[in-house]
């Protein structure tokens, strides 16, 4: 109580000399972009605009399915999207089934060149006006992903923070470190959708059930507006 009083007294004495230094600022409301998956949206509130979001997990954990859903939702809502495909793994044939509007998607194939991928992302972010930029590092080996220098991520964070752009990084291991406002860790194993058969069907069925429905998602939410305050919340949810 004494401390509180002395603080109030201090503010009253010198507050007028330091402008609004003692004023408590309201937390800015962060706009979000839906992922198109209700469960993830209810957990995270969507991907925050003006921030970096990271989706990571091993192969066959549902990263690409979530990316397709994200792109389909964003393009359906007339957002201009860009996909920086580091290892040239995007499959337009599979993405068609997700309902993606390709006219709103700029696909950049980097043929395995990590430096090109980062430079392309930087160019896109500086151009401005993109609603969603996805940097796909899903096939970059963990040791290479860990070698990515932090200054790239700080640069990206600084560039997007004044824009309504969602920068999403898809990777095998978490690599954006403290720069991501939202990190989604996918831990799932694929599950066959039906009994396997060697009978030749007329049409090939979907081999597995949608991966995200059998996933364990770990959400690491940091405060996106003041990312230097590491107030992390970890929640692990299975559905």
């Amino acid at each position: 109580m004494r401390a509180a009083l002395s603080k109030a007294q201090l503010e009253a004495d010198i507050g007028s000399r330091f402008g609004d230094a003692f004023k408590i600022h309201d937390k800015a409301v962060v706009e979000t972009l839906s992922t198109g998956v209700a469960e993830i949206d209810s957990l995270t509130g969507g991907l925050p605009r003006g921030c970096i979001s990271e989706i990571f997990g091993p192969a066959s954990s549902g990263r690409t399915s979530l990316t397709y859903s994200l792109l389909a939702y964003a393009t359906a809502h007339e957002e201009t999207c860009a996909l920086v495909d580091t290892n040239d793994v995007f499959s337009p044939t599979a993405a068609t089934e997700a309902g993606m509007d390709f006219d709103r998607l700029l696909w950049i194939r980097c043929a395995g060149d990590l430096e090109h991928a980062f430079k392309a992302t930087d160019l896109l972010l500086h151009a401005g006006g993109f609603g969603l930029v996805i940097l796909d590092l899903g096939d970059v080996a963990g040791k290479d992903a860990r070698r990515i220098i932090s200054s790239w991520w700080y640069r990206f964070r600084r560039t997007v923070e004044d824009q309504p752009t969602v920068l999403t990084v898809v990777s095998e291991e978490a690599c954006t470190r403290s720069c991501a406002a939202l990190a989604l860790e996918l831990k799932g194993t694929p599950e066959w959708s039906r009994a396997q058969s060697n009978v030749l069907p007329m049409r090939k069925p979907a081999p597995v059930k949608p991966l995200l429905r059998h996933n364990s998602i770990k959400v690491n939410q940091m405060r996106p507006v003041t990312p230097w305050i590491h107030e992390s919340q970890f929640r692990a949810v299975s559905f």
Partner: protein
Amino acid sequence: MFACVHALESADLSLVEFAYGFSPVVEEVRPGTVVIDVEGCELLFGSPYQLAGEVVRRAETTVNIALAANPDAAIHAATYLKGITFISPGEELTCLGDFPLARLDHSLVNVEKKVADEIRETLRLWGVRSFGDFASLPAAGVSERLGPAGIKLQQLATGKTERHLKVKQPAPVFANSIELEHPLSELEPLSFIFARLLHHLCAALNAYALATNELCVTMQLADQATHERRLSLPYPMLDHKVFLKLLLLDTEMHPPQAAVRSVAIACEPVKPRVLQNGLFVPLAPAPDKLELTLARLAKLVGEQNIGSPVVLDTHRPDAFSLKRFSLQTNADIRKRRKAGAGALNRPSRIDDELCLGFRTFRPPLRAIVEIDQGCPAQVSAWSKQRSVYGKVVSRAGPWRTTGDWWRDDRWARDEWDVMLERQGQQSLYRIYRELETEHWFVEGNYD
């Protein structure tokens, strides 16, 4: 004073070009007839009489010339009177008064043919036969009975119309070139040349309230070759700084093979883009910034590696092409909204079937597959970028697909979906066996 020149023969002589030799104020009435405003030409050609003589001398074909204070009177006189005709101011009817009314050119006063024919018929019934008869009618009575069109035609017959010449402007040429004293082999000094040419070009376009969507750059090289590049823009633009950056990026990607001796830049003039964005339309990149970004990306990863994907109409696996990425216009957006009005309000996909993601390995990984009772049991595949190996714990297949058997690039294969286990982690891959070569490949990973 106006001079009307009427060519009697359809010669190769371009009368408009010919008329520009006397005055810049020229109206082309119809093919073969032009009116020249010769006011102020005395210092060059002398009196109107001397001017008419000069016109006849210079013309390579037979022409009629009429000089009058009224352009329409000069047109009528030159059309129907041979040789050189001079009409003094106020003496129009002396010259044209005997002309029949059928010669009255109603198009000169913007009266429709149907209305003009009706008026002529009415005048014929009244017994009015010539320009002189028509001019002698009282203007108030003509206005009362024939209306404004009648008054216009009467003024035309009298030679008292008041109008300006519809001056035919020479078609503007938006091109600029420069010859260099010394050939340039580096991009930096060339950029100053580009900047200068583009600045003048954009200023010329701006003066006509135009923009351009195509730039054509022609460079004459030191080895006598010609280097030509065309820059097509999806939207009309008028910013010389953007053009300069695009041109420099293009020249970096496609450099000339020798030093440059001369540079010429021409552009296709089009109307500028007028765009009003809606309040509720999501933000999109600015067109000029997007073009620059696309050009920079093309320089970075190659032109063939950026664009919007297009799925080809074939059953061939992983068949797609890339088209140039461009922002959609408001008309496109409206059309799409009309076509899929419910798309925006669609429910979340979690209740529907979620789309299964697939990551394609390009090129497919050559694999060594151990077979057990006709089914894959172990898969091993390596490349510089990735490795796939493991014991097959479960599988589905095979699915046989074939196609394009009449072409060299035909395909025929048996596909399997295999679950591989490696270090306790299970992953699902699509592998296939080519029927022709019996080789196994890993096509990609379900994710």
